[in-house]
């Protein structure tokens, strides 16, 4: 390592030739030595900008100082006071636009690699005997008020964990057969290994949160049912479960997937292990992925790992406007993903049997700025080209899932389908029902969703207390057997 203290310690990662053909994690994480060296760069600012830049306000200088001193257990304890999912955040947060963007060192030698340090502390804990110790101090009380959390993505897991820490009895209802939401079906294992996900979900469980899978709230149970069953407040964190389409001819040919379908088949259903796993995926040799976000990169890199010979990303603006994390774009490039910037699909072509075989694209150029502050792409006349493709993945984003608002007329939405919420309390138009993450906000990152979950938990706590919380009330005689079972648990702890 060169000139200690000056230069950011790079995160080691597997060689592109080796990693591009499997689903094992790309980034390897710091060694203890690397972590302490990087932690030593932190200036320990009195008024740390990084904490303000973190949606869940982790005491960043605090945990970094502990790493620097070799007190790794102290470091993870500090992080977990504010963040229940550190191993996930350390991997998938866009630190470069959050905490690291405002790091004073950003100007000289590079910001402290906060994400890598957070990941280090979380992974160190997993490898130590410490794990799960905190759970036994969990204060959940049998006579506490019950809270339902709908969905089990980052917003919901965070909200549930916070509420459990405050002593509420929390049940998460998840529609799929496995919890995690977008962390499960969306983010591939080479960025977020499944065992890391399991570990952090187990941690939330250890705080006293119960997770019920296979419950589609809005279908299996309505919000009314939840209140009728005794839940006194509900958090809705059902995410951006509505895929956007290009609305171009040929989009329904076989071999055209939304990123949601493609990634769900692989990440949730393990289609890459077909036929050992039953869910199939047909990938072919040539894959075209449309879009420019993180999901686009995830799709392209997954396609490569499924055995595609060539994978091209088609994006209508230039590299500078890509919403994907720079780090992931570099990873994709290293692995051999090709980029066709300033190109937009015009239509999708198929063979006689309705299977996709090419994408007709239009070359674009950048014009004046649009309302998002980015230059608006416009077609260059006469400049068209054909990209052969056996698979096309439409990865241009997703909107709020309309399932719940559709069956719950009292749940008001904005014109774009997002739930209308109070910006302070995150309460929806239904008293006692709160919402956060992509169903209510546009930010679209894991950490922003977690920030929402945390804020909502505080507002829900205030709401439940103002309702004359039963948290402090005496047991009444009519408690169900379920509570009795929970009571035994409490006596143990």
């Amino acid at each position, binding site marked *: 390592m060169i000139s200690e203290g000056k230069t950011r310690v790079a995160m080691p990662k597997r060689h592109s030739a080796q990693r591009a053909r499997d689903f094992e994690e790309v980034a390897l994480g710091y060694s203890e030595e690397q972590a302490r060296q990087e932690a030593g760069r932190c200036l320990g600012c009195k008024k740390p900008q990084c904490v303000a830049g973190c949606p869940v306000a982790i005491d960043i200088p605090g945990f970094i100082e502990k790493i620097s001193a070799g007190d790794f257990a102290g470091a993870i304890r500090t992080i977990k006071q504010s963040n229940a999912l550190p191993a996930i955040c350390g991997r998938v947060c866009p630190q470069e636009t959050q905490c690291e963007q405002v790091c004073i060192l950003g100007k000289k030698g590079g910001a402290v690699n906060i994400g890598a340090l957070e990941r280090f502390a979380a992974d160190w804990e997993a490898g130590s005997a410490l794990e799960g110790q905190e759970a036994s101090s969990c204060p959940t009380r049998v006579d506490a008020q019950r809270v339902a959390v709908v969905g089990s993505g980052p917003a919901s897991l965070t909200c549930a964990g916070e509420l459990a820490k405050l002593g509420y009895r929390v049940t998460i209802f998840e*529609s*799929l*057969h496995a919890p995690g939401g977008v962390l499960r*079906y969306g983010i591939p294992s080479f960025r977020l290994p499944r065992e890391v996900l399991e570990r952090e979900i187990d941690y939330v469980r250890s705080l006293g949160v119960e997770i019920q*899978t*296979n*419950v*589609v709230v809005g*279908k*299996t*149970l309505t919000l009314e049912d939840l209140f009728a069953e005794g839940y006194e407040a509900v958090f809705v964190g059902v995410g951006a*479960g*509505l*895929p956007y*389409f290009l609305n171009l001819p040929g989009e*329904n*040919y*076989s*071999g055209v*997937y*939304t990123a*949601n*379908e493609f990634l*769900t*088949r692989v990440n949730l*259903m*393990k289609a890459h*292990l*077909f*036929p*050992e*796993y*039953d*869910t*199939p*995926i*047909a990938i072919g040799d040539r894959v075209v992925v449309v879009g420019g976000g993180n999901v686009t990169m995830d799709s392209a890199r997954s396609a490569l790992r499924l055995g595609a010979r060539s994978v091209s990303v088609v994006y209508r603006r230039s590299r500078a406007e890509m919403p994907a994390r720079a780090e992931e774009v570099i990873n994709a490039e290293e692995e051999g993903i090709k980029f066709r910037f300033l190109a937009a699909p015009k239509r999708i072509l198929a063979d006689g*049997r*309705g*299977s996709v075989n090419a994408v007709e694209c239009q070359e674009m150029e950048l014009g004046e700025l649009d309302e998002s502050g980015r230059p608006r792409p416009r077609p260059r006349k006469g400049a068209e080209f054909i990209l052969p493709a056996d698979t096309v993945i439409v990865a241009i984003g997703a909107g709020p*899932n*309309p*399932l719940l608002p*559709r069956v719950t007329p009292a749940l008001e939405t904005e014109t774009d389908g997002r739930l209308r919420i109070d910006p302070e309390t995150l309460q929806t138009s239904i008293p006692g029902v709160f919402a956060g993450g992509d169903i209510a906000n546009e930010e679209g990152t894991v950490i922003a969703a977690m920030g929402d979950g945390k804020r909502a938990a505080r507002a829900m706590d205030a709401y439940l207390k103002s309702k004359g919380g039963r948290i402090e009330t005496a047991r009444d005689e009519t408690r169900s057997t379920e509570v009795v079972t929970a009571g035994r648990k409490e006596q143990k702890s």
Partner: protein
Amino acid sequence: MYPIVRKEGLAPSVWLMEVKAPLVARQPKAGQFAIFRLNETGERFPLTIARHDARAGTITVVFQEVGKSTRQLASLEVGQAIADVVGPLGVPSEIAHFGEVACLGGGVGIAFIYPEIAALHNAGNRITSILGARSGSLLFFVEEISAVSEEVHIFTDDGSKGHRGMVTDILSELLESGRHFQRVIAAGPVPMLRAVAEVTRPYGITTIVSLDPIMVDGTGMCGACRVTVGGERKFACVDGPNFDAHQVDFEELMRRKRGFAQLERQALEQCLALERARAEGLLQDGSRRL
């Protein structure tokens, strides 16, 4: 886990299964379905809820062995359990007093149409049920459907039961002879549904068909089940599974249903080879792999 409490062979390769799934069984409506995943390596696939018993907490499904998953489901016995069952999903069928309703079920589609027939009957409609199968041995629910229908017509491809021919033959005949239906509903193979749509189109009769495209999550998240209806993109899982037959792009539906045909065949062949090997006692350890 969701235990199987009843299993009954309705016809060769057609099974009825009653599964304990209390939350799904609370109040499913006619036309809704559940998504099954048999085990840790299983795929998610939809099955129509043919009956339910809220008190017992059970739902009943009927399925035909066509691919690996349905074959594996058929191999499960009472007392064994299914890893995941989620529902009820989809929009319930429109049940109202329409007047005269013709209900067409083809093959395993008879199971899909049965709860709708019962609900329409209870809503005071006069029901003409038209049931079809490849052969008489593949028919089921005939008594149950007869009990809630004013008129029942049976068709088989080979003439082994009822009339030889297609369910659409009698529908055309009835319409040509001046019978009026306020509504026609149908469930069955896509070519049958398309044929029904063509028969009723000139008469302008509202015709509702139940579609079963490939699905994954069943909550509108993945878009695998998209169908074109009236030129618009609809998701069968959350907008359907029932759609106006005169608006459905059946050609596209058939193509999309075949999208994974080759891989599905591969999975089935491997499953069959495994069964054969087991039968021959080659795999005494019960291992899944060959």
